[in-house]
């Protein structure tokens, strides 16, 4: 275990240094922009996204009825992670005006459909679970 660990650390540090070496001829402007994006991801997650998710969870755990929390949480997990994964195509940015073979789908409409489907699952999934549990209890 000790040997494996040491080898992993050595390999990891070597890879990391190689990555830094590959940036040796980047200009100051490029490095500043890179640093902004590197730090931006961490700040956006730790200071905005994660607290927001905690807040949503806190409210949901107090507002939602028993039995609908798990389907709601699952729907939220899938909706949230997929929305972030698909964020680039939802921005309307990118592509080129003279090329209609790229970004050729109604992404926002598709996202609304995805959202509605998951919202219905969150609502109905809970009701079904409650009914099952009521049937068991009686």
């Amino acid at each position, binding site marked *: 275990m000790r040997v494996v660990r040491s080898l992993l650390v050595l390999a*990891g540090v070597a*890879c990391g240094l190689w990555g830094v070496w590959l940036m040796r001829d980047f200009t100051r402007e490029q490095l500043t922009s890179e640093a902004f994006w590197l730090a931006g991801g961490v700040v956006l997650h730790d200071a905005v996204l994660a607290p927001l998710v905690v807040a949503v969870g806190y409210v949901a755990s107090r507002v939602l009825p028993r039995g609908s929390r798990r389907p709601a949480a699952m729907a939220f997990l*899938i909706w949230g992670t*997929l929305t972030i994964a698909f964020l*680039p195509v939802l921005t309307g*940015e990118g*592509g080129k005006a003279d090329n209609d073979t790229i970004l050729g789908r109604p992404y926002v409409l598709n996202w609304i459909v995805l959202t509605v489907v998951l919202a219905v699952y969150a609502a109905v999934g809970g009701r079904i679970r409650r009914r099952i*549990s009521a049937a068991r209890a009686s």
Partner: protein
Amino acid sequence: MRLPTVADVERRMPRPDDFGSRARGTALTARVGSALGIAFMICFLTGLWSHVQYATPAWLTLSPHPTQLYRWTQGLHIVSGTAAIPLLLVKLWSVFPRLFIRPPRGARALVVEALERGSIAVLMAASLFVLASGTLNIIGWYPWEFSFRRTHEAVAWVAIGSLLVHIAVKLSVIRRGLGEPIDDAADDVDPADVDPFDPTRRSVLRGALLASGLAVLLTAGQTVPALRRVSLFSVRPGDGPQDLPVNRTAKGAGADRTALDPAWRLEITAGDRTMSLSRDDLLAMPQSTHRLPIACVEGWSRNATWTGVPVRDLVALVGAAPGGDVVVRSLQTKGAFASSLVVGNVAKDDRTMLALELNGETLDIDHGYPCRLIAPNRPGVFQTKWVNRLEVTT
């Protein structure tokens, strides 16, 4: 009224125990983390392979075989990167309370803690960076000042390096977590405290894997033909002139006028020997037809049927032996990759050709009319369009 002191702020800050969800836990983190680690490794290795196509080290000779190799590796690169996004988000969620662990006492412990947190910060920053820059590259949006290709590569090395360090540091925790059952041990919790309908570690694990799979299904249609209709969020729906998408149009390349000029000729040179051919001359030569993919770095790919003249027949016209390197130049005046190098190993393959037809029709101008290079196992950016010159260099 007084300003709050550090101690006041500290008292107000949440502690790891304040996060109530029972769904978090080492058993979940280790499992999601393992899946994420595998996705990152696949993404890293396929990414390295792609960079090798751009800057080939001297010890490596690129081969035209297997025909579909780059299509597979680059498709896998984008698929594994896409799959990693939900996994990374759930992984970060599962350990978020640990951000609020108070620093330990004692100088030595403090240094160890700082090093560990530092390595995690680097891992997190680099991971988010490669995923964000990669997905933005797919849609062709570059809201930054750095070079995408070089920076994406450099930061990927940092990401994988800090991942290896992270695995080393957490090895015993990972092993313990994977050994623990994903479900709560029955004697672990008081049943009176438990809402049986709360999310559990098992349901979050399932949700993370499901989200990851959905992210792939909903985008991978741009490289997996069977998923075309399912992939509601793919950047390349797969349509285009002659049933093939386009990365750069003739207009975008500044080649739309010159490509249609009747005076267009293909120049072939080897040393001081030169040859000039019209499109009719090319059409009069023996044609060959092959099914070859266009496979782009953005992860979209599509097979097509190409008809044209093998490059080795063309270089033979100026007396060059097959097996020499060939530089292919384009009419393109705007944007990168106006020329490409076909190494001898690929140039002598009988499927490497200047295509005149695509899927049974005269090549569309956006696909490179009057003629374009098409070769097996080659990234799309090097399948040079609007070709007007072949130079045998060796």
